[in-house]
């Protein structure tokens, strides 16, 4: 085969291959959101129970992704889970923002929900959120339901 034709084919192959890698990363994967976070600040919150929350789970406010879970640690003194969040620097939240662990859909994965309060002072890097609501554990919920039903039955 002619040298230039061969070069052209190899060139096309390599360009197509590398382009598909980029397409896979951006269109199929979440590289576009991973690298697009930009500047962020760090806030933490203590939970009694984090359920199935994982590192890199989204932090949402009003349903919009505003950050990601950076780290989850167990506090051996207070026996709570300490969750560190990376929040995009473009968004500022009041000091009395409440944070809860929610589930997307019935069987979806868990994420952090931020609900803004009314304070005029805003959260800064390294702050801790006081108002937290733990993940709902299905077994506890069912147990409570059964207990209430039993109590109802007893009172009749």
């Amino acid at each position, binding site marked *: 085969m002619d040298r230039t034709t061969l*070069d052209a084919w190899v060139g096309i*192959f390599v360009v197509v*291959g590398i382009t598909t890698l980029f*397409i*896979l990363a951006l269109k*199929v*994967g*979440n590289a*576009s959101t991973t690298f697009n976070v930009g500047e962020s600040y760090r806030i933490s919150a203590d939970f009694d129970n984090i359920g199935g929350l994982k590192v890199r789970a989204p932090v949402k406010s009003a349903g919009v992704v505003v950050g990601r879970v950076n780290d989850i640690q167990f506090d051996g003194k207070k026996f709570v889970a300490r969750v560190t969040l990376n929040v995009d620097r473009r968004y500022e939240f009041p000091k009395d923002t409440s944070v809860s662990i929610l589930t997307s859909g019935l069987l979806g994965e868990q994420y952090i929900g931020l609900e803004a309060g009314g304070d005029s002072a805003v959260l800064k890097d390294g702050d801790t959120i006081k108002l937290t609501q733990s993940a709902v554990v299905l077994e506890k919920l069912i147990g409570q339901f059964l207990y209430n039903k039993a109590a109802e039955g007893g009172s009749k």
Partner: protein
Amino acid sequence: MVPIWSWGRLVPERVMKGLRGVGHQVVNGVWRLGYATRFFLVTLMRSATSFRRFRGLTFREIYFAGVLSLIIIIVSGLFVGMVLALQGYETLQRYGSSEAVGTLVALSLVRELGPVISALLFASRAGSAMTAEIGLMKATEQISAMEMMAVDPIARVIGPRFWGGVLSMPLLAAIFSAMGVFGGYLIAVVLIGVDEGAFWSQMQNAVDFRQDIVNGFIKSVVFGVAVTAIALFEGYDAPPTAEGVSGATTRTVVTSSLAILGLDFILTAFMFKGV
């Protein structure tokens, strides 16, 4: 008390023959493994030529290993993706989550099927060709002729083929995965009518760049090294007869397929433990 060296006389000759056969096989296997490792290291050490004359030597090998494998990779990727979408939809719609079919197709392709199936196809298309070519070069004494002319056959013949294969394999795996996702899209969205927005957004939520795409890429690089090294070694080691070359070609496909599947298990165990 019978001394240890005369135990053989107590055992029937047929049993001893069988035992000797097993011992011979083991010694031979270990010897070949060592020879293959040395061959691989020598190839790596003498691959400077493949990069110094990249356009002259290695380009040709990328053409033969990569460009000519494109058709089989694209067609197989498309069909694998379409079958995954059909089967996945069939199961997922029972649980009312047919939108998750995009996640299923993308994750299984990027993590497992893309690297593994494209490596298996690569082994049977490009690997067997490499073995047959080098085996025949050896049988017709072209390799000895090169040595006579003080041309190093490892640097001139083996090195460029090795790097051509190693550079082509990850690109082929990426093309396979992308075509598979496109095939899944065709079946799920165009044919069945799954919601397009949910299909892509659920896929993007589930597929992680570092965890899935980079790991899949690493897998394909490892498979590329394994397949090309096995193919080149089998060719170089083939007995210089017609029978020897045919046996070596068969061994290339069998050994590299087993190596791909075994390596895939080991890599998966390391990459996705408990995540």
